């Protein structure tokens, strides 16, 4: 299994036991060439901005925009990566973002999977109406209720604290929805026989469902982590003090402060993307699985 192995995740492929060769075969040589040409072209278009980001971050400032365009940095300016730590609060921003992402992810995974079990496996009056309320809010744009939410958070004295972002992100309907979809694929008989053996609902959740749902939990954790890491509007509204800034806010203030330092701005951008990129490459199999099975994101 390579690091770039995305196909395992799509359910049909995983199920068909056709792991090494997904998709339909291409017979004629001509079509294959056309296919490769299209792939290379598409990949170039998709990757160009990232290539530009990395290359510009290693250039001197005056080399970023030259005519004709230089596609390789010469000289290679590694110093940019030292300078940015001295000229910005990168450490604080990364620290805040990491803290938030980890706490939100933990809460989302724990309370989300717990609630999902209640919705998927325990029958009680009002369950469906309650679940509908959860799903319904997924379709409501956040911008349309962010104002009352902000008022409420201010009343709870949460605004301008890191807790506001935790409160905002940790109890979303998305986690509940994703985990419920997954629990429903686990055969009911499994829980039935456990009930006959005298296991409580909580026991079934902990001993049977939790171990079985590790891939789904991992996918939820990764998605939540990345969403929280990249969130811009939430921190923009709630985190007013400079020492509370997340990487997205920090980077944006840095950009407006040093708007002519093109190379350094790119260095900051690379640093803001790097942690997520690493996590994505490590866990991408689960990412794709989560999306392919539910197709939703908060």
């Amino acid at each position, binding site marked *: 299994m390579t690091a*770039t*192995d*995305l*196909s395992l995740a*799509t359910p049909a492929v995983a199920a068909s036991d056709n792991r090494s060769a*997904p*998709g*339909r075969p*291409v017979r004629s040589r001509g079509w294959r060439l056309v296919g490769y040409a*299209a*792939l290379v072209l*598409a*990949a170039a278009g*998709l*990757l160009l901005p*990232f290539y*530009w980001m990395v290359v510009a971050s290693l250039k001197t400032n005056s080399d970023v*925009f*030259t*005519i*004709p*365009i230089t596609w390789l940095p010469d000289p290679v300016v590694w110093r940019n990566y030292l300078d940015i730590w001295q000229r910005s609060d990168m450490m604080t921003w990364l620290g805040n973002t990491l803290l938030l992402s980890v706490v939100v992810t933990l809460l989302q995974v724990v*309370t*989300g999977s717990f*609630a999902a*079990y*209640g919705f998927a496996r325990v029958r*009680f009056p009002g369950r469906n109406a*309650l679940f509908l309320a959860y799903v319904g*809010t997924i*379709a*409501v*744009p*956040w*911008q*349309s*209720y*962010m*104002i009352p939410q*902000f*008022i*409420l958070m201010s009343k709870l004295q949460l605004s301008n604290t890191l807790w506001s972002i935790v*409160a905002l992100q940790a*109890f*979303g*309907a998305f986690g*509940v929805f994703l985990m419920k979809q997954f629990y429903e694929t686990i055969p009911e008989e499994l829980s039935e026989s456990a009930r006959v053996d005298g296991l409580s609902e909580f026991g079934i959740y902990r001993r049977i469902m939790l171990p079985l749902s590790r891939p789904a939990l991992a996918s939820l954790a990764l998605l939540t982590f990345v969403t929280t890491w990249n969130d*811009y*509007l939430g921190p923009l509204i709630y985190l007013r003090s400079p020492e509370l800034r997340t990487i997205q806010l920090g*980077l944006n203030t840095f950009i407006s402060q040093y708007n002519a330092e*093109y190379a350094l701005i*790119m260095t900051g*951008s690379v640093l*803001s993307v790097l942690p*997520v*990129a690493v996590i994505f490459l490590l866990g991408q199999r689960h*990412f794709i699985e989560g*999306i*392919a099975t539910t*197709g939703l994101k908060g």
Partner: protein
Amino acid sequence: MSRNTVAGWSFILPNFVGFAVLTLLPVVVLFYVAFTNWNVFGVAEWTGTANFRRMWDDASFWTALRNTVYYTVFHIPLTLAASLGLALLLNRKLRGVRFFRTVAFFPYITSIVAIAVVWNQLFSPEYGPINALLGAVGVDNPPGWTTSSTWSMPAVIIVGTWRYMGYYMLLFLAGLQTIPAQLYEAAETDGATPWQRFVHVTLPGLRHTTFFVTVLLTIESFKVFDLILVMTGGGPGQSTLVLSQYIYQKSFEENQFGYASAVSIVLFAICFSITVIQFMVNKRRNS
């Protein structure tokens, strides 16, 4: 209360408390604030439909609405075509498809701020690689992109499509893999051309996925905000001002929470009715 009710609620409660207070309650309160003149400092005073009447005469509101529709009308078909095209391409047995799938998904997980700043450099009218490329293929007067009020919206739409196509590509890929291979074989035996196979096997097989993707894309397009805020700030002038941003401006910058809530209700109503219409159309087509 039965044992099941207690058990069910105890599972749901930890999440539900947060969800009810922070999501459900605000959604309900929104419908109250929209009929008041609340501005954070004073008391909320009931003003009836005054906010909505004001909106009717508010040129900036109509500009924001028009721009949002502009973004949506181009972003949806472009992203549909691009993501379906990518999915078809990456559903082939070609060397390296897995690498390409990762590449396609990568823009989706990177942050808006980084994306916006890089694309602004790429779009730079005089020194940017995009215009250099256009110049090389013989375009004499390449557009000013984010510095021009005509080209700023197309620029934003290009970046939006680039960012989201990988995500929808995955949904299409998952859909493609549910189409039985026998259908293609049968079509081939009957002598169907690749185009005929696409129209008569692939497209019908993807109906559910396409529907789902369109619903998600519509809501996502109407909500567009971060990308525009960081890339153009709504400008130049009001050329890329969208509804979400107008709500943000009116509330968090100008403290007119009542009026902003009224605009929010319009955004909510649009998203809600489009979703309902899409579901109804899909249901009728299925029956």
